[in-house]
């Protein structure tokens, strides 16, 4: 497909991508992690830090959809009988609330529960991929790699929460598999400001050892340069 490569000013250098072979990945923007009154807040975390991710991510999601690009959502969670939850994850540190316990928005981290689903502002559209993952990484024990290969995806725009846990683990997995990752700094969030900064710095360290980091405005600027005709070529698959 003869589409122009987009360029984004990023750290540690220019990130280039072809919209036809790039997916936006939105990691774990689930009610239980992000919303007031959810599981994350009951653990004493300031969910305001994660709420701040929603407005810029809404813009990124809208522009990505308008460009006809692939959108992938992930959710961390387990089947209701918890048979896919390792004992170490379930019992570690004697938590006051365990996975599977009844929380303020349903059973904690259990698939199908209200709190496990994605916030309304970023709800998936029909036809968008939703990856349900039992771990922090989006590749382990999921279909993600197969879906990317079938879709011809080679680059990922990575967003979501939390930066140093699920976002970082997914970027590390993707990088080892040869995918180019651009992390949008303001579209990722952490309960801990020091880890937000350290997590982003680690990605771009040593010449971009895991990938690239940029503010979402730089990505949106790149998409703006995509003409409607080019978008059509992307979505129709013309020009092969």
């Amino acid at each position, binding site marked *: 497909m003869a589409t122009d490569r987009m360029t984004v000013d990023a750290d540690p250098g220019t990130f280039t991508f072809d919209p036809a072979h790039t997916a936006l990945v939105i990691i774990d923007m689930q009610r239980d992690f992000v919303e007031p009154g959810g599981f994350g807040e009951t653990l004493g975390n300031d969910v305001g830090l994660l709420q701040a991710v929603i407005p810029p991510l809404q813009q990124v999601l809208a522009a990505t959809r308008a460009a006809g690009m692939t959108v992938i959502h992930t959710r961390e969670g387990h089947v209701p009988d918890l048979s896919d939850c390792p004992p170490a994850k379930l019992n570690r540190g004697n938590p006051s609330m365990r996975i599977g316990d009844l929380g303020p928005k349903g059973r904690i981290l259990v698939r199908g529960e209200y709190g496990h689903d994605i916030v309304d502002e970023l709800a998936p559209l029909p036809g968008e991929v939703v990856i349900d993952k039992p771990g922090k990484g989006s590749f382990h024990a999921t279909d993600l790699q197969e879906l990317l290969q079938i879709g011809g995806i080679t680059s990922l725009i990575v967003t979501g929460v939390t930066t140093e846990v699920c976002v970082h683990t997914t970027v590390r997995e993707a990088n080892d598999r*040869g995918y180019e990752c651009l992390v949008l700094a303001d579209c990722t969030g952490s309960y801990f400001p020091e880890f937000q900064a350290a997590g982003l710095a680690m990605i771009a360290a040593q010449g971009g050892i895991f990938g690239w980091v940029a503010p979402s405005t730089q990505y949106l600027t790149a998409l703006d340069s995509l003409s409607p005709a080019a978008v059509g070529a992307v979505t129709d698959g013309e020009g092969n």
Partner: protein
Amino acid sequence: MSLHPVLSATAIAHAARIGPVVADPYPWPYDGTVSAERTALICIDWQVDFCGPGGYVDRMGYDIGLTRAGLPATARMLAHARAVGMLVVHTREGHTPDLSDLPANKRWRSAQIGAEIGAAGPRGRILVRGEPGWQIVPEVAPVPGEVLIDKPGKGAFYATQLDLVLRTTGITHILLTGITTDVCVHTTMREANDRGYECLILSDCTGATEQGNHTAALRMVTMQGGVFGCVATCDAVVAATRAASEGDHRGD
């Protein structure tokens, strides 16, 4: 409590128990104690290219004193693991000589920073299997019978037989040493944690090219009740290792 120097290897081999280890954020492991037979010591990427004079990291201009800092404690941990009968695993990051397992972006990035994988370096072709720079440094070298994992990425699980080896040998708990803390050690710990292994990273047996990344990586492990496991020292593990007879006295 007996420390391993006063116990002969034969007295405690295949019978020692480990834990609870004084660790952050909880006494490790989560299930109280674990048999040495179900515990693996994984030593990550102690290669000349990363911590030897003239290797890849040295050539990139980093202070290899930082990546070498964990060698003495790792050598002590290795001796202990061998004495109590743990499975010992060594990993090496590297690529086949034809570079057919080297993703294009990894090659491009290494070239950007002046240390292109596959190019001639002071210790042979950089990060190519079989080259002098790819070998494990003598201070923590493998002995016959130990597992060697050759990995093309940062994580030791991706595109390797590590998970198969650990499950086949009945390993449920993992101790981590190696370099660098924030890159290959952390990636491997995250992969192991997602696969259900109970992990302990040994702070004095790791190191990074930047001290700030080392410190941040260790702190990340401890948040949210131990999101990836725990952090402890080599000596804490040694101190928490008991011979079977002591375990029997405790009614195990």
